[in-house]
């Protein structure tokens, strides 16, 4: 096996030092009745070339071939990834390092993540961003736990029904063993969180709103903030489409206390849903409540600038059962890739790409309306929106995937049973006018 360097002679001479006569004897400290009687029942090893064949066969069973057109978002977005991102992130000094416990030989990771933290605060208008979390759903669940822990007495959290359905499920999973409760804020016929209903809710430690929400609509964050202040609740904003904040006002500018987001749009592949990138940001006041790693700037014994992991006393390896979270590994390499992406697009690029997403989505909506779809909401949106489909669309949609590799929207009924025949569409900069025109023609 090419990953195992030991020659027969190596093994013999090493066993002489350890005092065993064969490799099996190294396990003499394990009682025989605990050892397995039969080997591992898995296939024989494959050569690299056999592996290539096997994996390509599996990969091609997924409909994600070269000319595939993705009109679905819902938490994973199809954006251009510049060639330099995979090129640079493949540098093994980044990829094959671990958590920067020895800062003297980890300055690459440390400065890179410090820059990531900085650019995330710029994107979201927040004071502090952590070195990353697993994904938006888990970051949001942690944010709700912060609100519940800091409020002490109040044991409920209000979460908009238009927060990504998976994220609401994760929150439920995370908070219920501790006896906390999640209440869902209903939504209005305009496809926004029902703030009147929210205003009527009592005893809530935090309010979590996604914007743009799961239906693509932009929420009135200023109004939510006003309610949060009255109720003395923490104001938590989430998002699944980071690109939106190339165009929208930041959550920070509306007074969010905590922001949990998904950073997959920033240079990361969709990769069947993971690994993505959990973004978690807060105000200065929340610094010590934030879970996960933080990188800080300092200097070395010569006075030269350097970076270290800091505020580690919040973390599980020191505070153990009293830690703010159990998180250890995060999604560091994806944070580094997102930093590379943000540096690549820069201030000019992110605005232009975000604007193009907005433009294409609006063009797509108009085109589909012309093709016989019905408009559902007249609320401002970024790159996703809901339409009611004409009869027979579901069959047409399946055929389009099978025959032309076009994914025409996502059926909302499994998530919102009341939204029968409603589809969530998405358009990003990767779709050309021609692609959109073709879709409109196909579904007519």
């Amino acid at each position, binding site marked *: 096996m090419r990953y195992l360097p030991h020659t027969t002679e190596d093994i013999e001479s090493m066993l002489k030092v350890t005092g065993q006569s064969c490799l099996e004897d190294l396990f003499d400290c394990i009682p025989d009745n605990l050892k397995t009687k039969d080997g591992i029942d898995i296939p024989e090893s494959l050569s690299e070339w056999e592996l290539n064949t096997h994996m390509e066969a599996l990969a091609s069973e997924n409909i994600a071939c070269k000319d595939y057109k993705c009109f679905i978002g819902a938490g994973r977005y199809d954006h251009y990834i510049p060639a330099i991102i995979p090129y640079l992130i493949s540098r093994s000094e980044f990829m094959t390092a671990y958590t920067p416990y020895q800062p003297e030989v980890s*300055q690459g990771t440390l400065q890179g993540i410090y820059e990531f933290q900085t650019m995330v605060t710029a994107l979201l208008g927040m004071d502090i961003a952590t070195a990353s979390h697993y994904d938006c759903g888990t970051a949001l669940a942690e944010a709700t736990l912060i609100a519940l822990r800091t409020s002490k007495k109040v044991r409920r959290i209000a979460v908009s029904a238009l927060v990504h359905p998976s994220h609401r499920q994760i929150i439920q999973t995370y908070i219920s063993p501790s006896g906390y409760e999640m209440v869902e804020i209903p939504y209005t016929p305009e496809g926004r969180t029902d703030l009147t209903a929210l205003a009527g809710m009592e005893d809530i430690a935090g309010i979590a709103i996604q914007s743009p929400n799961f239906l693509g609509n932009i929420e009135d964050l200023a109004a939510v903030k006003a309610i949060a202040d009255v109720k003395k609740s923490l104001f938590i904003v989430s998002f699944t489409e980071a690109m939106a904040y190339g165009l929208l006002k930041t959550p920070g500018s509306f007074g969010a206390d905590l922001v949990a987001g998904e950073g997959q749009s920033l240079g990361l592949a969709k990769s069947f849903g993971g690994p993505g990138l959990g973004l978690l940001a807060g105000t200065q006041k929340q610094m010590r409540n934030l879970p996960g790693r933080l990188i800080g700037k300092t200097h070395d014994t010569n006075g030269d600038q350097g970076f270290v992991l800091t505020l580690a006393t919040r973390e599980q390896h020191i505070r153990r059962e009293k830690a703010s979270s159990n998180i250890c590994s995060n999604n560091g390499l994806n944070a580094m890739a997102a930093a590379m992406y943000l540096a690549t697009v820069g201030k000019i690029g992110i605005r232009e790409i975000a604007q193009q997403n907005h433009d294409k989505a609006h063009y797509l909506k108009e085109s589909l309306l012309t093709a016989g779809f019905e408009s559902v909401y007249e609320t401002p949106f970024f790159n996703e929106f809901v339409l009611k489909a004409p009869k027979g669309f579901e069959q047409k949609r399946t055929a389009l995937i099978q025959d032309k590799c076009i994914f025409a929207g996502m059926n909302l009924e499994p998530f919102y049973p009341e939204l029968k025949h409603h589809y969530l569409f998405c358009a990003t900069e990767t779709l050309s006018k021609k692609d959109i025109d073709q879709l409109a023609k196909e579904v007519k």
Partner: protein
Amino acid sequence: MNEQPGTSGLIFNEPLLWDKSRKGRCAMSLPKPDVERTLLDEHLTGDAPDLPQLSELDVVRHYTRLSQWNFGVDSGMYPLGSCTMKYNPKTNEVQAARQGFAAAHPFAGDMFSQGALKLMANLEHYLAKITGFDAVTLQPAAGAHGEFTGMLMIHAFHAKNGRQRSKIIIPDTAHGTNPASASLCGYESVNIKSGKNGILEPEAVAAIMDEDTAGIMVTNPNTLGLFESNIREIADIVHSKGGLVYGDGANMNAIMGIVKPGEVGIDILHLNLHKTFSTPHGGGGPGSGPVAVVKALEPFLPIPRIIKKLDTYEWVTDCPDTIGRIHTFYGHFGVMVRAYSYILSMGAKGLADASKLAVLNANYIKESLKGTLNLPYDRPCMHECVFNDLFQKETHITTMDMAKRLLDFGFHPPTVYFPMVVDGAFMVEPTETESKEDIDQFIDAVKAIAKEAKENPEKLKTAPLRPKVTRLDEVTAARKPCLRG
């Protein structure tokens, strides 16, 4: 002495991104607009985020230089105990980058995602076979996330049985994540000391296990690198009081093909694909922390779950006893592809050989260095061995000083000051992918440093001398946190 790998090269300074920024630059090839520009409502539109403005070469040079300040497994031996820094095969990267995997949308629909589903179903099956369990979930995003999932299942199991319990037993050799995961489920951690051999004694468990205790969390092999040989007796005690046994499988790398945790009384086990199954650590993630369980706990696994119907695979969510969902989609699929490639490349024999050689390497280091460094538990070890700085106390040299000096010799230091049961721990995990020559160089380096500790302790106090920066002021970083530029 052989020539050590560490030497000083040409290291570039590189400012922070925004110090390189010049207004008007952009490193992105912007797509040409081909539809009408539509403006968002003014009161919703923000200013463009203040990101740095750079050319493509600026970005490439920036990250190339940063990377050169980092130490990775590809740079040299990285014997970080408990982290299993083995070689990360490059073919795994090629496999994960295939368009059919990398571009797959999680909501494409089961019918159009058969390749991904089949890969995941196969991987679940292989991991079950390797560990001796009946069912596996791949959803947890990291080891600690897997632990949390396991704890949630224990919590759900007791809830289903009609009486919730309040405590969980955690040995002093546990990972720090264990008590943190338990407390997320509202369990109070009851600490238990390992015996003088460095392993748990059944009597100690029997003395505190009661019907208000939900179970025990055992890391096996434990963080001293020792096999918990009383595991079966301990499991029997815990089971007899209605508790469950959680296995932290972070150290599974030592026992593949030798012991199947599912056969020795453990009920739930998490694995770290980024440790045992060779996926890159990425400077701190992403990892993946699958959880394997016995049949009785299968109903509690997180949703969605994969099932096979005739020849097709599909997701099911209709599982009334499930703990719910713990990841937005299905976990870290990209990491799973790499681990799957690794398992297929190794085969059953390769995996068992990996464990044997990992244990050989660790015992070889233990025997070679035990006169140089103090070895608190002088017993046959598994994949790692734990020394400390007792012999160096005379000249006031600490584990940290020796760790820093190792950097000058071209090695990443071992894990230091963990596990906490050993004062000044120096925890070495070479892994199976290091050759005898590299290990011999490491041993020589440690011996040379121990000699320096006696003869020239001042030099160790100022180490490291060769990296880009010297020791950093962590006190100032924590007192006056500066977390963004």
